[in-house]
């Protein structure tokens, strides 16, 4: 990954042009040929550095409900729990974290009722107590900016998972 790749990654993460020829617009902004830009973007996608070009919505403005939920499961049940939770199309992210509440997941669904239903189904499938489940909807948003400036040199293929705090 060279300097131009980094410049491209920065530009791609900001507002992707709403234009019939978005890469043409970006290439002009970066002052490079559109072929050069497209070749590099294709490569960054092939390498998995760019997962996809995606759109982020204010789901509430479209009438959807969302939440952050967590469950506390014994270590030997993490895999089963992850599979059960991951099966719901309404679950968009799920992570194993270093806490008594060890699986955290986000849900976007058509209503709060559906969210409660999903959480209840998961709780019952895992035979968990009510105290082993959290449902934590947002009250206020302070920042949402999942853009990352490429760091110097070091590239991890995945999370190292050796962080103990």
């Amino acid at each position, binding site marked *: 990954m060279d300097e131009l790749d980094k410049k491209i990654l920065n530009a791609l993460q900001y507002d992707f042009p709403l234009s019939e020829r978005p890469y043409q617009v970006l290439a002009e902004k970066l002052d490079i040929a559109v072929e050069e830009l497209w070749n590099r973007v294709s490569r960054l996608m092939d390498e998995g550095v760019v997962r996809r*070009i995606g759109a982020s919505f204010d789901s509430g403005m479209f009438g959807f409900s969302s939440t952050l939920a967590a469950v506390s499961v014994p270590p030997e049940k993490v895999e089963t729990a992850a599979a059960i939770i991951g099966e719901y199309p309404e679950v968009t992210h799920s992570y194993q974290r270093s806490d008594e509440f060890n699986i955290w997941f986000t849900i976007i669904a058509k209503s709060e009722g559906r969210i409660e239903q999903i959480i209840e189904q998961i709780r019952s499938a895992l035979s968990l107590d009510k105290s082993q489940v959290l449902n934590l909807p947002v009250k206020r948003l302070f920042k949402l900016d999942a853009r990352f400036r490429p760091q110097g040199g070091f590239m991890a293929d995945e999370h190292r998972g050796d962080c103990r705090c």
Partner: protein
Amino acid sequence: MKEQQSGIEKRILAVIQEGLPGSRTPYDGMARRVGISTRKLLEILKQWKQQGKLRRIGAIVNHFKLGFSAGAMVVWKVEPQHVEEVGQMLAGFEQVSHAYERDTTDNWPYNLYTMVHAGSCEELLSTVKRMSKACGISQYKVLTTEKELKKVGPRYITQ
């Protein structure tokens, strides 16, 4: 008329939630799948952008591959009257990608949430210490990311 409009909106959401096609003219492919012209699609997306319904279109990167190998959700217990001030302060750290206030429960007293990213574990922890010092909140917990179990784009339309 109104109903027709929302039908188009629904179809756009259903198509765009999968991400833009990896082509040089991604909106053309999307518009075809929605069944409207590219111009119409761009017009609606621009309108959504203006209304704040569309936050951003852009690359979703694999941040581990960009050198952010350590990540954690740091949860803070903040007195209600200080949430606004502390939230703004923590959000100001460039290592923080997300900052939210959330409901609390009987068994979970933390009300402020920050996602923190760093190149190493040491760097992550020293950043969190600086954050704690800056906002004067000592009741916090670092929940490091041990494993990504699932990550897809938001699915709005699931039927």
